[in-house]
């Protein structure tokens, strides 16, 4: 019964993400057609005027940020709320499944697809609330939607935990760090793609490259430590279960490659010549590695063949 409830919540989540995707695309299209948005963007192009709090005295800050209050009941407001509700429902869905199966929902390919989607929605909600680059939703939400649709093609019947997976704390932590890290990687991917598209888009409502570069870095600041923890936890688990901290298993090696790419990206930012487009391409490459790592076990087997 709970399993069907969990599955129903997943369907509602998919519907909400679909609505949010359409809403964001519609909002961007409407803003693109509007003259007002151009004026608003030009005003926020780097110099803000802030109140001193005394009378009407103001001070100018070049390069500063001033968040305007979020207008309620706009299309993007509804889209944001839909995404937030989708996160809540997907979380409840995962908890319901956990109660049914008796273990965290991270034990097979279906469950990890859901966990991956959950990580992406969490990242979308967090980064949208924190940094207000709402435009990234037009890239992030379709990817989330694709993952949810992919999950719906897989069998949702719970599979029993094989002995190696019966390590609840490590299983939970290992996979949850992967979910969050991969989820944030989608945001950095979206920021990188938008950064690379920016020179080809004449519309002034497109986020500034400087902001996209910072958003890509901020998302990687979540991805890289999470991938680090995932690799370390996996290593500790491997040492407990199989007596070795590293086995060059295809999926763990692919995860290492992903980690190296994000490490290269962070390294590249230190090198002056590798900022901007080159580092954005590294983020695109990093996300390709994430997808490869996630899907790789379908082709390569190994110790991670179950997920």
């Amino acid at each position, binding site marked *: 019964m709970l399993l069907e409830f969990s599955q129903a919540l997943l369907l509602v989540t998919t519907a909400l993400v679909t609505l949010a995707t359409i809403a964001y695309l519609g909002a961007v299209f409407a803003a693109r057609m509007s003259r007002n948005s151009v004026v608003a963007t030009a005003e926020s192009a780097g110099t803000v005027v802030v109140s001193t709090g*005394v009378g009407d005295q103001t001070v100018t800050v070049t390069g500063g940020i001033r968040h305007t209050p979020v207008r309620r009941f706009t299309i993007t407001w509804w889209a944001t709320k839909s995404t937030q509700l989708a996160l809540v429902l997907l979380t409840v869905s995962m908890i319901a499944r956990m109660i049914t199966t008796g273990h965290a929902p991270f034990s097979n390919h279906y469950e990890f697809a859901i966990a991956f989607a959950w990580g992406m929605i969490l990242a979308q909600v967090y980064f949208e609330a924190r940094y207000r680059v709402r435009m990234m939703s037009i890239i992030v939400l379709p990817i989330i939607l694709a993952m949810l649709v992919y999950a719906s093609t897989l069998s949702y019947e719970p599979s029993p935990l094989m002995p190696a997976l019966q390590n609840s704390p490590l299983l939970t932590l290992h996979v949850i760090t992967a979910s969050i890290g991969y989820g944030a990687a989608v945001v950095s991917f979206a920021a990188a793609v938008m950064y690379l598209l920016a020179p080809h888009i004449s519309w002034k409502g497109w986020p500034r490259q400087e902001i996209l570069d910072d958003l890509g870095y901020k998302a990687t*600041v979540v991805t890289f430590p999470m991938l680090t923890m995932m690799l370390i936890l996996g290593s500790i688990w491997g040492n407990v279960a199989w007596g070795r901290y590293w086995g060059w298993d295809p999926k763990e090696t692919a995860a290492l490659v992903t980690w190296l790419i994000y490490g290269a990206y962070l390294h590249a930012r230190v090198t002056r010549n590798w900022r901007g487009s080159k580092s954005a391409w590294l983020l695109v490459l990093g996300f390709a590695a994430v997808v490869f790592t996630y899907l790789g076990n379908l082709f390569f087997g190994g110790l991670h063949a179950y997920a």
Partner: protein
Amino acid sequence: MSDDTLTTPEPTPGAIDGLDDQAALTPGMVFGHIYAFLHNKVVGLVLILAAGLLSLFGVLFPQMPSSARADAESMASWIESVRPTFGGWTDILNAIGFFTMFSSIPFLVVMALLAASIVACTVHRLPVLWQAAKHPHTRVTAAFFDRARLRSTFTTSASPEAAFEILCADARKHRMRVVVDDRGPGLNAYMDRNYWAPFGTAFAHAAFVTIMAGFVVSALSGFRNEQFTLTIGFPREVGNGTNLVAEATAFQDSYYDNGSPKDYVADLRVSDNGEQVAQQQVRVNSPLSYHGVMFHQAYFGVAAVMKIDDSSGAEVFHNGVALEWATPDKTLTYGRTTLGDQTIYVIGSASGQTGTGIEPGQVRVEIYGTANNEPIGKAVLDVGTPTTVGDHTFTFEREQQFTGMIVKKDPGTPIVWSGFLLLVIGTCMTMFFRHHRMWVRVSGCDEGTLVRLGSPDRQDSGFTRFFTGMIMRTSGKMAHIEERTNNAS
């Protein structure tokens, strides 16, 4: 590179040939060039990507299992098994090391260069970090405040001293270090936060080298036996320089309704010099540990308990032979043991297999010498019936469950763990505590007091928000002073 090495000196008049005036190439210069190459950030980046690329090849290409590397024959057999896939490229890929990527020369060279690059980069960077952290550049030009990426200029009627104090107090309140520069013009201060954070890169770099050192120690020391089989009730020496004896006294396996394994657990006892020192139920995720020697539950199956007597009737073997391998067609399972220079294979029918010539309650023994691949004796044994084959009498006593363990001692593991700890510390320092800087100048002007703040740091929305907020707070406080002064007058 100095000019000395780049310019070609004019030949000395009267010299016999042009080789008298060669530029010097001292060992120090060679070392300097190597060092400069290694600490170059682009070289480091290329090496990281090369390591990633080679690792990717290791994922994409099938890797030769360690069992196939045991001898040349096994290796050749494995190579033949992949030849249909790679055709004429098989030998080339094998020569390059694509089938043994993680122990291949290209991979090891890249990893060694990467380690050297990391060490050089860290050594090169530490003095710079130390200088920036302990002796920051506190003085900037007036033009800096016109060009800084993040900047603000405003006037106030508060006195320069009061305005400067408000700025410094606000910075200190928000955990910023404030370094006052008395050199003028006006009142100047350098402010920063998390000045120790850049040292995180040194931790992260040290972590990488430590982890690689752990890998090397693991490869060169300790031992690992992945096929340590224990037939239930029969003790076995661990060997590898230890005096340990392990015995599984019980084993239980359970299954889910769909037939997949649910749990398998061995009751393991370990003795050291004849005295029991450890006992534990060993599961996949619950290994037994004794003085650094780990016993991991890995697999299980059926063993044939065999008793072997020599021609004089003396017992030379009485133990289980784990039937741990299967023939390619999966119809037979077999195990082996050695007796002097002879290898004894014990073969049984796989579960559910009939028509193999080995009925339930039977095993076949085959005896091989060192000379050739043909058995020097073989026979099918009925349970409990002594049968003489060659110089020995074999008795198949019964079937008994065996547990397969991984037994290992790895001194490299604690080194790797310490590397992981350094990695976590370094990553957290670098990622979550960015070094933020700003310069402040307060001076008198016609309108009263001119306040200028600037930060050249690259876009960081968190710090930008803080900077903007600081301007709002401090300018507000200065305006309050101005308001109170006006009210008082």
